[in-house]
């Protein structure tokens, strides 16, 4: 437990919170431009957030504490996620390493709080969103664990920071089939977990296709603000993870201010590029029917499984 | 008693036993079955006397007389009386065709000879060599029980089986201790009495004494 790791965590949190709305703004803008719209500008998410946080939320008579707690828990879980994932630096807390399984479970805490909130809304929409959300989460789970498992085999540990470090040390492994298969599977996971196309359309309010939006339909004001920020933070964390796994350079190996600065710059660049690519890709894909999503996820599972087996059998 | 006479007497009595047993299977009238039983009783008594005298048993005439009284006298008489009261003259409830019955009887006799062979071995004693007759009687008695439907003829089958056991017993070991012999005879008498009592009730309940009708208790 060193001051360095505290500093790293603080940097992670600050960077994540500051960068995330911007990242969303960039993605929306890219998309708008490609679709021939002007768009609201990259700062619009920030403006939305501040507006929402300053507004009063509502509650129905007989509602339960989940209504109040769920947004906070989602937010907290996303923040812990950002703290644990090696976004900027691979220095981790000795007693809370960015362990793969811990990270996944923290992610799931957020998923569950969203799903419960959806149910708490007491409407058909909320339940529907919650149900779909959980099914997708359940089906994503094997892919998540297996793909990171595949990446962890060469490193011999489930500590994400250690994995990233090992990949920096052995760049050749980046291009081997194990790594490629796993990263591709992971991308599908990120898309599914964060509700992007083709699994979910983040900007739709069409009742039959909503997943994420259906759950937060009843929320407003401050609650909605936290929910939006929390969800965006998840995107940042996961995209950051994929980016740092795929392109591990630039991640600070220690807590020195300079390398941290480099790390911040690197992760910002990677996030923006990746976000832009994602947004651009989304323009060209249509949302899948809900019941074809399992096919997509099964495909990604197969990729992950192959990568694990390959990591044993081929190398 | 000379050996030749002994052998002759043994042959006669056991031959008579076997003959009556086969004839039992052949015919179907009740009165004839009872008649054959009487003959069988007499033959059995003769056998007992022959074997006993040959062995020098002092009680042999007594046992023979007992056998004669019970097997050729009391039991057939009781059965004939029962049959008269039940008005039964013929076994109408037989289960197989006569030919099948007779072929079965032949087969069983052969079987009796086959299975009792190892028991008596290559004995020189003519009594032991006659043991298969006893086994035939037992198997044919059982056969009778199996193919006859009237209560009386079933009873006849049972008695024939009993005669067979007695035959085996006398031929193979010259009889059991007297107390056991008496007890066994008493038991057979009692069994026949009970079956007679049940027979009377059967007649009263259903108007005839055909056993195949007794099929109410089943699963």
């Amino acid at each position: 437990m060193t001051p360095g790791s505290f500093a790293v965590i603080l940097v992670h949190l600050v960077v994540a919170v500051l960068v995330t709305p911007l990242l969303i703004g960039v993605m929306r803008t890219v998309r708008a431009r490609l679709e021939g719209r002007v768009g609201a500008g990259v700062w619009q998410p920030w403006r939305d957030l501040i507006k929402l946080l300053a507004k009063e939320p509502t509650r129905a008579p007989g509602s339960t504490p989940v209504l109040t707690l769920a947004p906070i828990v989602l937010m907290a879980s996303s923040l812990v996620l950002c703290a644990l994932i090696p976004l900027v630096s691979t220095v981790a807390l000795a007693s809370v390493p960015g362990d793969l399984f811990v990270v996944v479970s923290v992610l799931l805490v957020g998923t569950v709080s969203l799903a419960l909130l959806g149910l708490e809304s007491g409407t058909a929409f909320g339940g529907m969103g919650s149900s779909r959300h959980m099914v997708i989460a359940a089906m994503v789970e094997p892919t998540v664990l297996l793909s990171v498992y595949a990446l962890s085999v060469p490193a011999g540990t489930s500590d994400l920071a250690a994995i990233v470090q090992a990949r920096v040390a052995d760049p050749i492994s980046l291009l081997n089939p194990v790594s490629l298969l796993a990263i591709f599977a992971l991308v599908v996971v990120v898309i599914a977990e964060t509700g992007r196309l083709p699994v979910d359309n983040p900007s739709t309010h069409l009742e039959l296709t909503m997943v994420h939006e259906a759950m937060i339909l009843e929320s407003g004001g401050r609650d909605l603000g936290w929910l939006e920020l929390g969800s965006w933070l998840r995107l940042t964390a996961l995209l950051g993870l994929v980016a740092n796994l795929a392109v591990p350079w630039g991640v600070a190996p220690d807590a020195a201010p300079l390398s941290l600065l480099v790390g911040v710059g690197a992760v910002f660049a990677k996030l923006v590029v990746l976000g832009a690519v994602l947004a651009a890709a989304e323009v060209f894909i249509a949302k899948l029917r809900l019941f074809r999503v399992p096919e997509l996820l099964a495909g990604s599972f197969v990729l992950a499984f192959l990568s694990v087996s390959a990591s044993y059998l081929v190398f | 008693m000379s050996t030749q006479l002994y052998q002759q007497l043994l042959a006669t009595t056991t031959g008579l036993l076997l003959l009556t047993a086969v004839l039992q299977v052949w015919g179907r009238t009740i009165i004839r079955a009872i008649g054959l039983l009487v003959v069988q009783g007499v033959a059995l008594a003769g056998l007992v006397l022959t074997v006993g005298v040959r062995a020098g048993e002092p009680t042999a005439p007594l046992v023979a007389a007992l056998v004669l009284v019970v097997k050729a006298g009391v039991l057939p008489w009781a059965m004939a009386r029962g049959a008269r009261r039940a008005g039964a003259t013929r076994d109408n409830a037989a289960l197989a065709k006569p030919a099948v019955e007779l072929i079965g009887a032949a087969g069983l006799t052969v079987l009796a000879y086959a299975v009792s062979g190892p028991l008596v071995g290559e004995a020189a004693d003519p009594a032991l060599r006659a043991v298969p007759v006893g086994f035939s009687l037992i198997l044919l008695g059982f056969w009778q029980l199996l193919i006859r439907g009237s209560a009386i003829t079933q009873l006849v089958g049972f008695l024939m089986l009993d005669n067979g056991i007695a035959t085996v017993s006398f031929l193979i070991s010259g009889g059991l201790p007297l107390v056991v012999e008496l007890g066994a005879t008493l038991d057979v008498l009692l069994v026949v009495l009970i079956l007679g009592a049940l027979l009377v009730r059967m007649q009263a309940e259903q108007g005839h004494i055909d056993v195949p009708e007794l099929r109410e208790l089943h699963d």
Partner: protein
Amino acid sequence: MAVLIWIPVVLPLLLGAASALRRRSGWTLWLPVSAAAVLLGVGVALVAVVGSTGPLTAADGLLRVDALSAWMLAVVGAVAVVALWGGIPHRTHQGRNIGAFATLLCLFLSAMSLAVVADNVGLMWVAIELTTITTAFLVGARGGRGALEAAWKYVVLGSVGVAIAFLGIVLLSAASHGTGEPSLSWTVLVAHAASLDPALTRAGAALAVLGFATKAGLAPTHSWLPDAHSQAPSTVSGLMSGVLLSVAFYAVLRVQAIGDAALGPELMRGLLTAAGLLSLAVTAGLVITQKDFKRLLAYSSIEHMGLLALGAAAGGPFAIAALLLHMLGHGLIKSSMFVLAGRILGFAGSHHIADVRNLLRRRPDLGGPFLLGAAGLLGFPPFVTFFTEVAIIIAGFQRGLGWQMLVACALLLVVFAGVVRHVLAMTVGAEADRDAARTSSAPPDRPARFRQVPIGIALAAAAVLGFAAWPLSGPLLAAVAALGGVR
């Protein structure tokens, strides 16, 4: 001391005579009960005496009590007390010919005692045939076609079976000619086993086992049993199932001892295993779709006899001790179950399982013990049957009857499923109570507490027996030793 041997044979005869004379008195039916109680007392006393001084003989060695006979006497007494006491009908239901009924019961007890204490195989055969004769009237006692049919089948099949046993005994006797001192005494036969004629012994022992197995209700010669047990009055069913079968099985054990000593265990083991497994199979097949609860109990007796046969086939002190204890446990439970079945019959007016519903709610005084007794029959602890079943199966494996025991376990499961299904159907359920109106309007004919006593005692005893190491272990081992000890 030898007088102790005569008491169980003669005293029931005297009491029988007394009940024939006092045929209508209210206490006539208590005479058999007291005869049974005396049997129990004498049996226990003999267990103690034989344990300390060795076997007793009387009547020139015709009668002999060793540890096994003493144990069997105690079992007969204990089970008979339960069956007879529990079976005493309510004063208002007593029929006209209770004198004859009581006399026959006394004779029956006497015959069983004689069978157990006889040292002579022939005498024992006579005694066992006598039990057939006495029970024949008892089975038919209720009158009606069913009882007649059952009695006829019982007598014909029973006597034929026992006649086969007699043939076996004749051959055994012939086998002993070679020893120089032809005899039918158990002790002599076992002592001279080595010099018996092997071929005759082989045939004699096999036929005797087959014959006595008929009486013991072992498949495939069990056919009379379900009919007789379901048609007889419950007391008689209880007695027959609880002790008569066991006494017949006792004869099988004695014959087995001779056969094993003379020929080695293979023949007897093969026969008994086949009989045991067939009995279990027959029970398994016929309990599944059983419709009559007294027949259900009857088949359960066949199952238990099958278990005994498997135990005897396994042999060895552990298995034999277990099967002797099992006789006691099964007898106690089964006789109470038959008594209860009789009461249920009186209450529901039908033999059919389908006509008896919800006993636990409608008649907890019947349903509760019935359920408990069923648990005992199925071998749940703390009932002694649990220990004995486990012991028999484990002993079977230990002595090389592996696959036979596996088959037995499979069949036991089917039996279990069938019995549980029917017992549950009778005792519990949430169906609307069809007869609720009738039962609530009629005054509940709750029997006096007193009538529950024998059943309570029997079930409690069966539950405690398994843990009674102190008084029981010694006599059981002694009884095993009386059969020839460790084989």
